[in-house]
């Protein structure tokens, strides 16, 4: 099968990739780049574990062709911490006990990241609506909602 050259900005760094046109962003991230923080499960955009940010918006990387991301900026969970400091969402997930097996957590955090950027004053109902596409089987979602709300409103800003 013929291959194509792509240029993607992933976590702030430009990557030149040669790949087949049918390959998904998820396959390129996990396979070609070894960024396995982006998880794989249903492969049909039902579970949300593969969520990444594309130009700041949360997308299911399992149903997105890598070719659709040509010239665009992708943020994965590996790109969220800055200079060794965790993103407030990551820290809140730890502090609030929102992590159990953790397999859904990268996608959950990135969905929350995109949402809070747009709705920093969201209430719990809105947070739950924003995360309804991310399945978690361990936590019952409560501590996840708590963590997202805490990250949205750090104690200093209340």
């Amino acid at each position, binding site marked *: 099968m013929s291959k194509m050259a792509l240029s993607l900005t992933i976590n702030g760094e430009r990557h030149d990739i040669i790949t087949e046109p049918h390959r998904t962003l998820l396959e390129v991230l*996990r396979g070609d780049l070894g960024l396995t*923080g982006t*998880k*794989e499960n249903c492969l049909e955009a*039902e579970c949300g574990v593969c969520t990444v940010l594309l130009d700041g918006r949360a997308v299911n990387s399992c149903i997105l062709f890598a070719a659709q991301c040509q010239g665009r900026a992708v943020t994965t969970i590996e790109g969220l911490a800055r200079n060794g400091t965790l993103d407030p969402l990551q820290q809140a*997930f730890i502090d609030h006990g929102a992590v159990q097996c*953790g397999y859904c957590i990268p996608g959950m955090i990135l969905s929350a990241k995109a949402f809070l950027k747009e709705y920093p004053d969201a209430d719990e109902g809105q947070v739950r609506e924003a995360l309804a596409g991310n399945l978690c*089987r361990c936590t019952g979602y*409560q501590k996840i909602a708590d963590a997202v709300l805490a990250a949205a409103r750090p104690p200093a800003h209340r």
Partner: protein
Amino acid sequence: MTTKTMRVVGHSLPRFDAPGKVTGTAVYAADFALPGMLVGKIFRSTEPHARVVAIDVARARAIPGVRAVITAADVPDVRYGGGIKDETVFATDKVRYVGQPVAAVAAVTPEAAEAALASIDVVYDPLPAVLDLDAALAPGASLLHEEWRSYTAIPIFHRDGNVCNRARIVVGDVERGFAEADRIFEHRFRTGMVHQGYTEPRAAVAQWDSSGTVTVWSNTQLPFEVQNTLAEILAIPPSKIRVVVPGIGGGFGGKLRVGVEHVAAFLAKKAGRPVKVLTTSDEELTAAYPRQGTVVELKTGVTKDGRITAKSGRIWFDTGAFAGSGPGVASVATLVLAGPYRIPNLHLEGVAVYTNKTNCGSYRAPSGPQANFAVESQMDVIAEALGLDPLEFRLRNIVREGDEGPTGQVLQAVGLEECLRKAAAAIVWDDRRPGPGRGKGLACGWWTTTGGSSGVYVKINPDGTVALNTGAAEIGTAALTGAAQVLAEELTVDLGDIGVVSADTFSTPFDFGAQGSRTAFAVGNACRAAVTDLKYRIFALAAAQLGVEPAACALADKHVVADGKRISLADLARLSQQTGGGLIAQGTFIAAPTAYDAKRVDGHAYPAFHSPSFHAHAVDLSVDPETGDVTIHRYVVAQDVGFAMNPKAIEGQIEGGVAQGLGQALSEEIVYEGGRVVNANLTDYKMPTTLDVPRVETILVEHPSLVGPYGAKGVGEPPNIEPPATVANAIAAATGLRVSVLPITAEKIALGLRDPGAAVSDSG
């Protein structure tokens, strides 16, 4: 024993593995990769029951990029299985369910592997399929396993054709008990097949080395059991098999047994390259190890004043094409059917039955939700009929300290009454029907802390930190954080000082595995045992250094102190490295057997609950009379955890267990039509989302176990047990409609409200 004096246990400390999980650096089995690794895929049966006339893999083998194609002809002729060895790696003479592995392929790309699957030709000669319990148990039913008598099985199991075990508890004389009753109630219930719903698919990577050893990186909960099963299947010694668990994205019992590990191992051997097999959602919902669907019949006799005099009952498990966990689960079910109640006369049976469906397995509190749904639904019906408050009716019959369990075990640390009263008070039970279409329900139950042995090695590092080496896998429950808390407490170090190596059959000590709510309990106790041994070594060394007697030594704040002198654990560890091979100790634990009356059980694989936990759930919900939609306003759990090792982690277990339980109660079912699953995707298999799960209010009750570390009891499974009954009871309180079939979908409620016979009637 109070947490006031504890520095580490009893505190809500963050789990040690959280940073890796929120940054994406934690490696799960599904992430694991090796250079040159091939993609393995499984070719599965399309027939529920058929003779295999011919398998042609020649075209598949010829596809470019395909490195291995294997069938039953390529693997040892071995039958394996837990209690009954009835399963083969690939179908041989016949297929027994849609989804059964018939062949497997390994190829350099997923596309080549898919093309190979599409090129395998199998000719089937269909047989009459046994599609439900009634069909399986009918006289003259087609047999799933004509050769069942020849199978190796645990001798106590009672097997007969399509029945792969009949477990029984008999206490007293039920007929006499029914004669003493003023009223007798008989009900029938049915529950659907449900999936554990872990978000990480089952995964295995296998690689052989030149010495003939195969290493399998897998997300199994039981690496040592998988090692032994692989030894049988591959027909090589266990020492030639190394099972490593890199990380697990949820298991809930679904990743106990060999799933894809054996296929990866055979493909890797044939191809001469590492092979990875990762299941799809379709495979998970058609060919994994879900919870059995059941039918339950209960007959209960009571006096006018609400004392239960006798109970007889039977629960049939639709266990699918192979026995799997069925025979054992059928045993456990009888203890759940008895309930946490004082009943002098019992005759309870659990029956595991073969059908042409996927092989069912274990799911968080196996048999718990199904049997408890029946028991606790009936308790409410009886209370209603007697004009008793359901809480009061339970309080008149529950077990209390020192009572006998159904099989004669003496019950200790029984926190049930406190759980019931606290859950009822929290939900404001006195106001049971707060408005039109709104009602409250409660249910209670009991559960076991599974036994089995655990070993640990504990080593003091030269900087004074501690290495915990355990054979247990961390499946997400934070159980190993709990064990590390025990270790930190006992060694007077911080939780952050403990590093954990786990779940590698080559290098870690044996562990019975992450199952049955046992990990924090058993590994925690093994840590305590290791510290006892370690202290002996540490104090001997310190005494010589400090010029004191070992008996004068104590641990405090990462030091040994004695007679006003002190030396740090770090110094002692360095000293020991120079002189004595380092500070290391082994600790082991196995729960002592729980005494029971063997005359009361028959065919029973699980005759008593070890260090049992007790719990009560309560819910306040509304039902839309038009659509049948259920809205949950509040959900309360009061659980006797013995001792709360890490309260926040336990809350997380309870919240998550309730969420799964609500799925079973209201929306989840693997639906079979004509032997085929019709909803094998995550849109049509409806697991609760953020919008479906309410906040769960958790009340931790602490009646300390005599055995567990600091009094802890098993925590993980129980919260999954009571939600279906709790919700069913509240729906009945809200609407008057008693739904006896799970899941209680909005459709069933809406139809039932129009025609009450519809939802209650049991067609299966």
